[in-house]
């Protein structure tokens, strides 16, 4: 019999965190449902032997100081964000028991998104939602669950459906979701309903402990102080009025068929990390690139064309190949919506010196793959620079007479190889051959490492060779 009278071991004996002289009672008003619900939770934690592995999340609201009382790990969070914080905590410690304890303003107003989505992900947490139809701590303002006609500080003439809409039945809303396992609305009213609430609390916690299941328990509760009713009258109100709009009962229960989720994480040692994280680095064949170490390379390249022509990948292939020649390189795309279907361009720098600005304003080399690109960038090319343009798509010649010009029917050549998309590699082949920027052997060998689509490597190798051949035929 002694056990019954003893305070739960999941509560602190003395509430040292509570300021002021009184360290033995709670901050809750007489008749408030929080104290009773705290007790039901604490006793369940005792009985299941999980106090030490429990992490209790205090919300903003009257239960903001739940951590005064619960002798568990405690995290106090921002208004409405408990289910999000619970997500981060539970995923860090999948074996812990995480309780998200929230009021009606916290959960059903400012934190609506967080609870819906935590429920929808089926996070392995237990949510206790205390619905007393009013904001308690901030002083009796309207809650999303305030009843129609109910007077509060912010609905002084009574909640009007025209102005404030209807009270939200959160349990029913959450029950429409697939992932939640157990949802029930209970009340702290008379002894009988409280004893039933006790069973529900225990079931929900057990489901988390045994199956890592998401449960949502709505607890109708009294707020005598803000209702301006005596504790006994306010409980009567919960039973007769509040429970009339918010029907008690199980809203969803798939706990029997629910299979425990595997939430274990991979264990990856540091020696396995290079593979898991893809830290593979490029091979540099110092013998093959030796002739290029002596060259003075300082190219600023602008590559431009339609989205879909492989303009950006032309740039990355040049840069990556440059890196394999021990050059300093950088690649900067035009990015965002203009990539999708419109024109695309990128800036590539290849140099023996450290690269300052990665942006190419005045290219030494312009690669123009369509007419708008030639129109846009022709005048930017430095005097003495090089313009390579695809004359199978561009119907005019460049007008500049102070630059070198290569007209190459890259798209037509690629079509002959069987794939229009290889036009960009035809130009790569032509450029490195014409400027002797890099070792063709290294480029062909490395192409398989550089290209994402491995089935196109052979085609692109042929395209590079065709581009080089085109240049050699010009000479």
């Amino acid at each position: 019999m002694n056990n019954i009278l003893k305070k739960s071991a999941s509560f602190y004996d003395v509430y040292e965190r509570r300021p002021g002289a009184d360290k033995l009672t709670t901050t809750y008003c007489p008749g408030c449902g929080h104290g009773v619900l705290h007790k039901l939770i604490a006793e369940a934690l005792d009985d299941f032997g999980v106090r030490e592995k429990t992490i209790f999340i205090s919300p903003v609201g009257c239960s903001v100081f739940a951590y005064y009382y619960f002798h568990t790990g405690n995290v106090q969070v921002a208004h409405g964000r408990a289910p999000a914080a619970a997500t981060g905590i539970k995923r860090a410690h999948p074996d812990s028991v995480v309780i998200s304890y929230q009021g009606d303003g916290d959960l059903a107003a400012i934190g609506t998104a967080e609870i819906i989505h935590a429920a929808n992900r089926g996070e392995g947490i237990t949510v206790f939602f205390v619905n007393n139809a009013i904001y308690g701590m901030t002083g009796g303002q309207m809650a999303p669950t305030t009843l129609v006609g109910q007077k509060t500080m912010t609905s002084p003439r009574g909640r009007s459906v025209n102005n404030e809409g209807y009270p939200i039945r959160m349990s029913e809303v959450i029950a429409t979701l697939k992932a939640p396992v157990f949802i029930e609305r209970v009340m702290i009213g008379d002894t009988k309903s409280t004893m039933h609430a006790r069973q529900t609390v225990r079931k929900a916690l057990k489901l988390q402990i045994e199956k890592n299941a998401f449960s949502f328990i709505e607890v109708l509760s009294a707020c005598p102080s803000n209702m301006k009713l005596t504790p006994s009258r306010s409980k009567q109100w919960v039973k007769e009025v509040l429970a009339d709009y918010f029907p008690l009962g199980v809203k969803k229960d798939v706990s029997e068929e629910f299979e425990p989720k595997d939430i274990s994480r991979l264990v990856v040692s540091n020696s396995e990390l290079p593979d898991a994280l893809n830290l593979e680095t490029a091979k540099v064949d110092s013998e093959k690139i030796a002739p290029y170490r002596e060259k003075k390379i300082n190219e600023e390249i602008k590559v431009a064309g339609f989205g879909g022509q492989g303009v950006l990948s032309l740039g990355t292939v040049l840069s990556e190949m440059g890196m394999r020649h021990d050059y300093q390189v950088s690649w900067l795309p035009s990015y965002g919506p203009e990539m999708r279907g419109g024109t695309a361009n990128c800036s590539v720098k290849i140099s023996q010196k450290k690269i300052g600005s990665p942006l190419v304003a005045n290219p030494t080399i312009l690669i123009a793959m369509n007419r708008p690109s030639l129109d846009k960038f022709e005048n930017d090319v430095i005097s003495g620079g090089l313009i390579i343009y695809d004359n199978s798509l561009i119907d005019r010649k460049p007008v500049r007479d102070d630059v070198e010009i290569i007209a190459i029917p890259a798209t037509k050549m690629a079509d002959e190889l069987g794939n229009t998309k290889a036009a960009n590699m035809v130009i790569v082949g032509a450029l490195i051959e014409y400027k002797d920027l890099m070792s063709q052997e290294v480029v062909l060998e490395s192409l398989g490492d550089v290209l994402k689509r491995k089935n196109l490597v052979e085609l692109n190798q042929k395209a590079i060779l065709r581009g080089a051949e085109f240049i050699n035929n010009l000479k």
Partner: protein
Amino acid sequence: MAKQFLKGNVAVVKGAILAGCRAYYGYPITPASEIAHAAAMYMPLTGGTFVQAESEIAAINMVYGAASAGERVMTASSGPGISLKQEGVSYCAGAELPCVIVDVVRGGPGLGNIAPEQSDYNQVVKGGGHGNYKCIVLAPNSVQEMCDFGMLAFDLADKYRNPVYVLTDGFIGQMMEPVEFPEPVEKIPEKSWAVKGTKETSDNLITSIELDPDDLERHNQKLQQKYAIIEEQEQRAEEYRTDDAEIILIGYGIISRIMQTAVDNLREEGVKVGMLRPITLFPFPKKSVTKLAKSAKFFLTVEMSNGQLIDDVRLTIEGNVPVYLYNRMGGNVPSIKEIHDEVMKLMRLS
């Protein structure tokens, strides 16, 4: 050295994972989305967790939860998303939770555009949310630094139990450069204060609430003392050709890359110009600025914002040397020529 060619936005994730970060919570936004893409790819493969949150607010609160639980955790966004996260960052700072936030800044205000800007300087460097707090802010200017600072940020966050930002822009996030990977960290510092669902941590409490004004003032004073130590110990800056410089260009991130070329060009013309690049924005590199102010004729602050960095330069120099501003906004990036011409113009005037 062996290198991999990759995007800034990917490099910062690889650096974070090498630093032992195993949790990412975020929301997609251009031009930061590749960070989420890379985290979604690599977190699960390396024993971590990735959640695409329902909102920026949820994401930072998931970070709050994971940091409370003792994990090395990160999130990333761009201007509009960072504005939304500010509530959570304030809570992290108040509860002294270490976490890393990457901000790949885009054009603002409002929806603005997705081109690079530096207009989040004030909201990131000056606190940004409610309350008296500061975050440590690292400003990379290369893809290599995105990786390196992805690691460094976690060390600083844990060392000071404080949120750390990696503040960069659309260019650094989107560009690709070769990266040499650092060694992974061997062991993450023990966090005895965290809440881990264990016997040892069942008396721990993570909170930012202090009802009593005296208690909250003490907490604030403790935070200010911490920031003072950070200011003393963690200032980082790069100087370039400043030895005999009479003109100091100052700018961070992508701007410093452009300024470096501008300095080289001006030097070739015989102009005695150098560059100071703040690497930490908080703490602001006051020591370097003060030292250079002794011999400089003037400073030119170059930024892609409406004169935000320049406030810190002026506060440091306290009127001893003229400080001028050259800036572009809306996603336009100052060119080498613009910077060059601005210096020449100011030389004629001064």
